[in-house]
């Protein structure tokens, strides 16, 4: 019997993790990852680049080296997913047929959705933009820095908060904090989208003298006058603007006619199958799921995609359900961090920031390239490191999450 051809489109966290897990089943499937560049960026590390605490070259990895040897890698941009013919059409030339496809095409910041933002503002969500911000920050001598969220959705929801708190640390180190006003702007009625996390951030911002401007939906930026203008009618002057642009799905999703108006792939929130396309799965930022767009979400989705895909190949119903689990460490400033663990049903209860969680985050950043190729689930790794919970099954991610969440409740 011929092996089923499984193609994974996109070599980010989700795509790489899925492919490496599938590689253990090459007796019945062929696995190919298609990636535009073959360069894997560890995006969470970009947070530190503007401060000079991380070098971009350390965040770039050869995708080939991250992938299991049994996984084939095609480095070529894809123009179109032809779902009728079950093939990918490459931008330059040729096609690649598939029996099953995993869409892991990620998301892109789109500064052009806010007039003036590309010229007047900075962000750190791509390597070039993080380097631009690094230069601007290192030339900064004092004044008003506006940091915030330019629109929804955007990936890694806590990142702007983390940046703001690290900025406070960095300015203090450079003896510029007394000369700087930090204002955090958000379209929301409160500082963060998840209510259970708001008191902690409010307390941190208040203690550090960071002002918050809520209900600030950025309408436009005037780079000449250095003003940012909201839909609500507020105008704020700035000396440096760090505004996270709204994101869209990958252009290939739009081109293929399988996305919604934001370019996100309509995805079953439990089975992770693309709605209306049985042989297609989607993972990570590319989906329209009501969870954070983050590598952490993709990480928890990967075992579900793999399990359901293999079930389907064997002619069975996809039985594994993703419960919306996400776990992420969040910088809290002063060398401390907290952790957010939540799912569709249960919101996070962040424990008090501590150096332990900061150490966990630093460890994860460091060991990421070693963990992903081996398909090591980071939740399991950290639970084991903590010594609190022993993993009990291959699908223990959710079980562990719940135990750890209960532990957070006690520590909060």
């Amino acid at each position, binding site marked *: 019997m011929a092996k089923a051809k499984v193609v994974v489109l996109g070599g980010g966290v989700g795509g790489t993790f899925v492919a490496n897990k599938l590689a253990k089943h090459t007796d019945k499937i062929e696995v190919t990852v298609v990636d535009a560049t073959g360069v894997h960026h560890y995006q969470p590390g970009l947070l530190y680049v503007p401060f000079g605490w991380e070098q971009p070259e350390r965040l770039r990895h050869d995708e080939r080296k991250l992938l299991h040897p049994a996984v084939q890698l095609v480095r070529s941009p894809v123009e179109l997913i032809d779902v009728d013919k079950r093939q990918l059409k490459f931008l330059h030339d040729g096609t690649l047929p598939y029996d099953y496809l995993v869409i892991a095409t990620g998301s892109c910041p789109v500064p052009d959705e806010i007039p003036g933002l590309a010229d007047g503002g900075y962000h750190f969500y791509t390597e070039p933009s993080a380097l631009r911000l690094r230069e601007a920050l290192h030339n900064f001598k004092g004044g008003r820095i506006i940091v915030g969220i330019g629109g*929804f959705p955007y990936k890694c929801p806590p990142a702007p908060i983390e940046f703001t708190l690290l900025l406070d640390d960095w300015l203090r180190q450079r003896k510029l904090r007394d000369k700087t006003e930090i204002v955090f702007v958000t*379209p*929301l*009625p409160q500082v963060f*989208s998840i*209510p259970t996390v708001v008191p902690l951030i409010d307390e941190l911002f208040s203690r550090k003298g960071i002002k918050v401007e809520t*209900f600030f*939906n950025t309408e436009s930026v005037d780079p000449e006058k250095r003003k940012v203008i909201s*839909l*609500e*009618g507020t105008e704020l002057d700035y000396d440096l603007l760090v505004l996270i642009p709204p994101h869209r799905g990958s252009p290939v999703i739009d081109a293929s006619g399988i996305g919604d108006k934001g370019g996100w792939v309509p995805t079953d929130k439990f089975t992770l199958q693309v709605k209306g396309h049985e042989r297609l799965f989607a993972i990570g930022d590319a989906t329209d799921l*009501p969870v954070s767009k983050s590598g952490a979400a993709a990480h928890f989705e990967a075992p579900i995609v793999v399990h359901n895909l293999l079930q389907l190949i064997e002619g069975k119903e996809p039985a594994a359900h993703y419960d919306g689990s996400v776990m992420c460490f969040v910088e809290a400033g002063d060398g401390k961090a907290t952790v957010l663990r939540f799912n569709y049903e249960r919101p996070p209860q962040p424990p008090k920031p501590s150096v332990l969680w900061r150490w966990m985050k630093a460890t994860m950043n460091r060991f990421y390239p070693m963990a992903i190729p081996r398909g090591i689930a980071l939740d399991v790794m950290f639970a084991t490191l903590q010594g609190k919970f022993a993993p009990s099954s291959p699908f223990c991610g959710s079980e562990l999450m719940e135990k750890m969440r209960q532990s957070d409740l006690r520590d909060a």
Partner: protein
Amino acid sequence: MTEVKADKIVDARGAQCPGPLVELIRALKEVPVGAIVEVWTQEPRTKEDAKAWCQRSGHEFIGVFPAEGYERVLVRKAK
């Protein structure tokens, strides 16, 4: 009040906060002054957030109407 007719309806059922509010604001950007936008939401917080946002932004909060398994939040673009 239930006969108020919306010029644009946004179905944000199933979306978690801040999804419905974001969709409401996005829709208001696209309609002319005086038009009414109706957002369908299953998030209990949307009505409070939408009301507070209208107070802040100067748009008219018309009201909230229960429907089967969701709520209809209506706002008129005032400027």
